[in-house]
């Protein structure tokens, strides 16, 4: 697939803005307020990076990956916020990436960008870094109470990509439907 860079692409900017919005909403659902932290854009999480989860996605004329990066303090805080279960912090970061992209999927469906998701892959280590094509996308960083997280949405659009007409109304996070 011949791709064009999403840089300065209004469809990508729309997707990235929705990602920032759903990140704030997701943590608010756990009563954990986070704020967008543009000041971290230069240095990122650096050696504080403890864990990264990535999930691939594909739609009609667009494909890419979402990455969620967390410090150890963040992973511990999210586990506590989710009920304080005794479980692997890596699993927590993977599940939060899944919920993040799930919310984004709903938003994109309403915007006429239906996507399908893969399952998360999570890695843990000291000072994790990623290697991606320069300018393909950029990190967004957020600050929680005593910790930081980063999200990165990469997207490759096919030439001629267009958002679809849609009337779809997806179920929202927290909805419970009995048939």
């Amino acid at each position, binding site marked *: 697939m011949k791709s064009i860079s999403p840089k300065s692409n209004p469809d990508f900017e729309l997707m990235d803005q929705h990602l920032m919005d759903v990140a704030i909403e997701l943590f608010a659902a756990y009563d954990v307020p986070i704020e967008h932290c543009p000041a971290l854009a230069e240095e990122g999480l650096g050696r504080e990076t403890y864990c990264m989860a990535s999930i691939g996605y594909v739609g009609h004329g667009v494909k890419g990956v979402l990455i969620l990066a967390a410090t150890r303090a963040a992973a511990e805080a999210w586990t506590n916020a*989710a009920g304080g*279960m005794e*479980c692997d912090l890596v699993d927590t970061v993977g599940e939060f990436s899944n*919920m993040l992209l799930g919310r984004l999927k709903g938003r994109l469906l309403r915007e006429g960008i239906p996507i399908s998701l893969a*399952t998360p892959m999570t890695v843990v280590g000291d000072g994790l870094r990623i290697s991606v094509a320069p300018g393909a996308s950029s990190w967004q960083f957020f600050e929680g109470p005593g910790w930081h997280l980063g999200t990165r949405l990469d997207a490759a659009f096919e030439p001629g990509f267009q958002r679809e007409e849609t009337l*779809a109304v997806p179920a929202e996070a*927290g909805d419970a439907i009995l*048939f």
Partner: protein
Amino acid sequence: MTARVMVIDDSMLVRRQVSAALKTPGYLVTEAVDGVDALEKLAGLADMKLIVCDVNMPRMNGIELLERLSAQGSSVPVVMLTTEGQPELIQRARSLGAKGWIVKPFKPEFLVATAAKLAPLGA
């Protein structure tokens, strides 16, 4: 009286959350990590009263598991618990016999109320 429930999710965090929510009122909870694991465990458990199942999982996803259970003629009610909210997926699950759809993150009280309706403890 109690009732046995199976939670199927590749996330340990979610399995623990669901288990904690359902064990409190008295359910016995069996965990499975994906559809393949679930089918293997269900083969040895004849008293399952309810299945709580994720959609996106490796090896066998939740929709594929519904297809297998439907083909087997299973009467165990299944509630999907997922980050997905796409209407086509919900309709697909419903057509395969699913009894409910909950979008993560879930409220434990909703899950317990759903379990009480589909698999009452006193029954």
